[in-house]
């Protein structure tokens, strides 16, 4: 089986963690070719060629492929699709934007957020905010899949794949990039961080969320938030952990003032160690926490910062 994997490339740089995890999933299906597309993508292609298990890298550089606009990126992938049985990507917001478009252009269904590979046609994926896991068998000639990165380990280094280049497909000219608004932060990226500290509605305000950030900085952690905290305006949406936000699986996950709605649990329950701090001892978060502390977060968190 020939697999084309759309690498996660941001501003010319390869997002190694997300791409290498998708490679692990793709290797179970067949021979993996990685596509690095962007206005500059050569360096990303070079980095991708070193991922263990990648047999070929294809670099596509064109102004129209900058900023991963869906229309031009999908057109490129479709122009290459004849050579592959599977077209896959890590389930990032970029890929979730592009891959369903690719699937529709090929007249096949998308298999979104696959969390397991059963065989080349059959995949597991969470549904109902992670309340159920469905095994689906595709009857389509080609499969288009995004992989939930948190359930796969990153493929290691040590590969030495050949690198080729292709030209972009004709730019459909339907959309253009205006600007990115990326919060400058020295903190690790949420989906690949080893430690994540998240705050929920219990934090109470945007100002008090600084306490969560302080604990995160003490632990060298990324900051997350529950959907309730995002909805209440305490935290930006790109911090959201859960079925409608990001899915994380760090070594240590600290949930502060989070009750543990199912939709939040779906985004973090694969974490290795879960700590919950909540004043409500009945909160469902304690049912998944390895270590639970029933306490007022405004007392416990400052003390924790001091004693760590």
């Amino acid at each position, binding site marked *: 089986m020939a697999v084309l994997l759309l690498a996660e490339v941001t501003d010319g740089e390869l997002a190694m963690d997300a791409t290498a995890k998708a490679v692990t999933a793709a290797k179970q299906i067949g021979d993996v070719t990685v596509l690095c597309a962007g206005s500059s993508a050569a360096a990303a292609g070079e980095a991708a060629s070193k991922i263990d298990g990648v047999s070929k890298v294809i670099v596509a550089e064109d102004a129209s492929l900058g900023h991963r606009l869906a229309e031009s990126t999908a057109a490129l992938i479709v122009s290459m699709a004849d050579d592959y049985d599977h077209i896959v990507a890590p389930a990032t917001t970029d890929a979730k934007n592009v891959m369903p*478009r690719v699937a529709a252009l090929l007249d096949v269904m998308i298999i979104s957020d696959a969390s397991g590979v059963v065989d080349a046609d059959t995949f597991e994926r969470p549904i109902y905010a992670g309340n159920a896991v469905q095994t689906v068998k595709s009857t389509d000639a080609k499969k288009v899949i995004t992989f939930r990165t948190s359930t796969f380990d990153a493929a290691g280094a040590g590969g030495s794949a050949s690198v080729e280049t292709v030209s972009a497909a004709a730019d459909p000219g339907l959309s253009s990039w205006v600007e990115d608004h990326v919060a400058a932060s020295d903190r690790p990226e949420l989906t690949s961080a080893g430690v994540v500290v998240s705050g929920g509605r219990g934090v109470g305000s945007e100002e008090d969320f600084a306490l969560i950030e302080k604990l995160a900085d003490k632990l060298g952690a990324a900051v997350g938030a529950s959907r309730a905290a995002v909805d209440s305006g305490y935290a930006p949406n790109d911090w959201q952990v859960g079925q409608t936000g990001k899915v994380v699986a760090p070594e240590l996950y600290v949930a502060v003032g989070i009750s543990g709605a199912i939709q939040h649990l779906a985004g973090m329950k694969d974490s290795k160690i879960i700590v919950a701090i909540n004043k409500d001892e009945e909160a469902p978060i304690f049912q998944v926490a390895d270590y639970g502390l029933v306490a007022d977060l405004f007392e416990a968190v400052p003390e924790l910062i001091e004693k760590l």
Partner: protein
Amino acid sequence: MKVLVPVKRVIDYNVKVRVKADGTGVDLANVKMSMNPFDEISVEQAIRLKEAGQVDEVVVVSIGVKQSQETLRTALAMGADRAILVVAADDVHNDIEPLAVAKILKAIVDEEKPELVLCGKQAIDNDMNATGQMLSALLGWSQATFASKVEIDGDNAVVTREVDGGLQTIKVSMPTVVTVDLRLNEPRYASLPNIMKAKKKPMDEKTPADYGVEVGNRLEIVKTVEPAERAAGIKVDSVDALVAKLKEAGAV
């Protein structure tokens, strides 16, 4: 300008999901159903565009079982003008896949000629996150997914998108398909007078065959199971005890 808003009838987000013991799916018999929360946001956005004078007509469409008419009535009570019900299943457990939904929607767009389609970014049942992107592909239109801000400016829409690193703003040519994310707006509740008025608003009933679309599924469901349970751990009684446990586990 006309706006088309697809809405899906799904299990209410407050209802505890139960997986059927025989592994055939999730039990939806006698369960409270509501409008997909992301679709409520797209209905709200369409109504706000109308209130701002940028849109003349808001048409809502639902594809599924006959009871989806309740979901359409909710959208009409919120302020949509007209509804199209496409009865594509007679059992609530038969979920129509995004590709088939997108094909039916394409046929409706060809008839209705809206300049904007506003979709929820995903349905909270199958969590596919695909219909809007697929519809845009089939139409050959531009797409702007995961929108937290939408401004229509003549021949273009300027859309701010929720992406992994933060926000991205793009300009898309009209007509376009926009899928909406959580922070775009807070949907209104329908008032009682508006619920009464909605009963008199027009609703067409169609079938997939009327649009020449075959709704057979491409993904065969092999089984549906409960997710692996995570065992509960222990409660600690102080911050000191917590720090000690974390050190013991090598986590800090």
